[in-house]
């Protein structure tokens, strides 16, 4: 395990070098990725380490975001909270709201806990438009980053470094937290609350505290978001935000430490890259999530860690002769599926339907090719790619299962 410090150092150096490596649009994406990564880490402290599933983390993210915008307007980036320290406002509000929400929701466990978090977040979301003073109504609240400490904070590069600093600090703190008695007890909460009770622990207080810490870091992520876009909008309280952080975290794997961060960064990255190409990124994300939950229950990063850490019993290692055709099958099926979805999306769009209303099926340009929606071949080719890929994967799996049975 001497490798780990070097890997971390390397990763931090790459993150520090990013502004010189990528375009300004990508730099903006990098900021978004960092924020999403932090949010996912905060979410997973609760859902992965402590095993309490929250469907309402948008509330704490959003409250952190609004608190920061209000703080920006109140302090003008000076005095008590100069611009670099503004995220503290978001973290503080996240913490306080987390204590209140956590106190109520951790009274129940399991599915009931999940439903209470959902109800609390939706309640806030439904109330927010009525509280114009706090949430700014439809338009939201905007503000400006003020110069402080000799930095202008006018460019994306400065915002990137500010975000990077806070995100690394927060992830570092979350890592240290896992090494403390409280962090260990979070695992106990996940594994067996009843036993913890009979060992003399105050389970409700522990749950509330973990919830509050999770909400605090979510608020911090919201704060960074506000600093980045210089505004906070009521949309940040939407179900969508809770959904995306949940999908991201579980796709990465909530029980391995950096899993959620990597999952969130990757998903945000793909969302950004494909935003010009597709309007249905959330659909892909949902499909990936369902597939991951069904076939890689530890999440992508979790599964990789498991496979390469040598914890698997002998004979269950990776076989190239199986892995390669499996990957090929997945790739073919994915290509077919993506083409289908994209074609459908274009054909079903309002503009196209208006065009096609006259009984004509004009051609579509997509991925540098032109497609004839009127011709059956256009649909048959991606469909057969999808079917072929799936058949390949199923075939390999069946053979692998047969082999395992034969050796057992």
């Amino acid at each position, binding site marked *: 395990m001497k490798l780990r410090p070097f890997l971390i150092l390397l990763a931090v150096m790459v993150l520090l070098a990013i502004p010189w490596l990528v375009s300004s649009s990508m730099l903006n994406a990098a900021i978004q990725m960092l924020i999403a990564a932090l949010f996912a880490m905060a979410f997973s402290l609760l859902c992965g380490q402590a095993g309490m599933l929250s469907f309402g983390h948008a509330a704490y993210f959003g409250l952190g975001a609004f608190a920061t915008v209000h703080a920006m307007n109140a302090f003008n980036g000076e005095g008590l909270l100069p611009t670099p320290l503004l995220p503290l406002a978001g973290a503080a509000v996240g913490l306080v709201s987390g204590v209140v929400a956590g106190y109520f929701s951790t009274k129940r466990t399991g599915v009931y806990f999940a*439903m209470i978090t959902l109800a609390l977040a939706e309640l806030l979301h439904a109330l927010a438009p009525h*509280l114009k003073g706090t949430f700014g109504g439809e338009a939201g609240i905007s503000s400006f980053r003020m110069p402080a400490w000799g930095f202008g904070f006018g460019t994306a590069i400065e915002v990137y470094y500010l975000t990077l600093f806070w995100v690394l600090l927060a992830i570092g703190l979350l890592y240290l937290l896992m090494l403390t008695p409280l962090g260990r007890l979070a695992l106990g909460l996940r594994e067996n609350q009843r036993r913890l009770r009979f060992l003399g622990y105050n389970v409700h207080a522990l749950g509330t505290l973990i919830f509050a810490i999770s909400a605090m870091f979510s608020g911090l992520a919201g704060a960074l978001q506000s600093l980045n876009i210089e505004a906070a909008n009521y949309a940040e309280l939407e179900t969508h935000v809770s*959904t995306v952080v949940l999908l991201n975290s579980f796709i990465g794997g909530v029980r391995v430490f950096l899993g959620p961060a990597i999952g969130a960064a990757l998903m945000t990255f793909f969302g950004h890259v494909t935003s010009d190409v597709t309007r249905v990124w959330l659909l892909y994300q*949902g499909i990936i*999530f369902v597939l991951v939950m069904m076939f890689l229950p530890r999440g992508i990063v979790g599964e990789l860690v498991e496979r390469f850490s040598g914890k698997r019993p002998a004979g269950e290692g990776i076989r190239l002769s199986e892995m390669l055709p499996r990957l090929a099958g997945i790739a073919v099926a994915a290509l077919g599926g993506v083409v289908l979805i994209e074609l459908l999306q274009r054909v079903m769009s309002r503009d196209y339907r208006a065009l096609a209303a006259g009984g004509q099926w004009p051609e579509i340009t997509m991925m540098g090719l032109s497609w004839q929606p009127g011709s059956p071949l256009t649909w048959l080719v991606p469909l057969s790619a999808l079917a072929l890929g799936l058949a390949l994967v199923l075939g390999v799996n069946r053979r692998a299962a047969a082999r395992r049975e034969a050796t057992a």
Partner: protein
Amino acid sequence: MDQIFFALLNGTIYGLLLFMVSAGLTLIFGMMGVLNFAHASFYMLGAYFAYTLQPLTGFWPAIVLSPLLVAAIGVVIERYALRRVHHFGHAHELLVTFGIAVVIAELVKLFYGNYPVEYRVPTELSFAAFTLSGIDYPFYRLFMGAVAVAMFAAIYLLLTRTRVGIVVRSAIYRPAMAEALGHNVPLVFMGVFGIGAALAGLAGAVAGAFYTTNPNMALDLAVLVFVVVVVGGLGSLGGAMLASLLIGITNSLAVGVNFSLGDIFGIVGLGEWAGSVGGVMTMRLSSFAATLPFFLMLLGFWCVRRA
């Protein structure tokens, strides 16, 4: 007085619809311990399928066919997704159904756009059933209520009078025992999942024409349906029925009532102060209607905890 009568009637019918959606969910929860997040999505799918089929087949075949399609989808989800993750535990199952709900919502947006569609009550059914103090009461509301009542009677008879019903009830009570007695419990689960989905689909097909049919209808309803299932007592059909009516009526009364907290303070002479505080104080109660399900949900969890 008539206002209250209308509100009560509307609430009752809305409650009956809620029950149609909740019935399947509560049975599934009772039997498998799965809180199916995608259940309200079945309601939405029912509405969209009926909307799509209506121009091709006419209204009546559409509201028969679309629940069947929804049932097929439900069976596929149970057989190929839920059963696969069953051994990972209930939280995992909840997550998978959550993912499926997201995918269904996104697919609906893909096919039909992110706006309400023009799914209307057919003209032959849109007439006034009766008129009270100058207000027409739409026949279609009564029709929806009748469908729900018929469904309740059908499920009740199915559960109490048939062999399948006995197996289902025993599977709710003790799945392992029912299986040991030689009943095919997985098949029963799949069947109940399909029927539950079909009921939700039927509710969607019927109600979608009257209320709105849009891609957010699933989430809006999901919360209410969860409240019903929790307040009604897990796995209890009668409880679900009562809870549905209670919530339907509360909801419909709240929309009709129009005061603010400030008005209440006004009664005790603090009106001016409340006005100066603004914010929550001056909000009309009816504008809180959207928040009501969530209040009910929290209240529901609170009461159940006490019990």
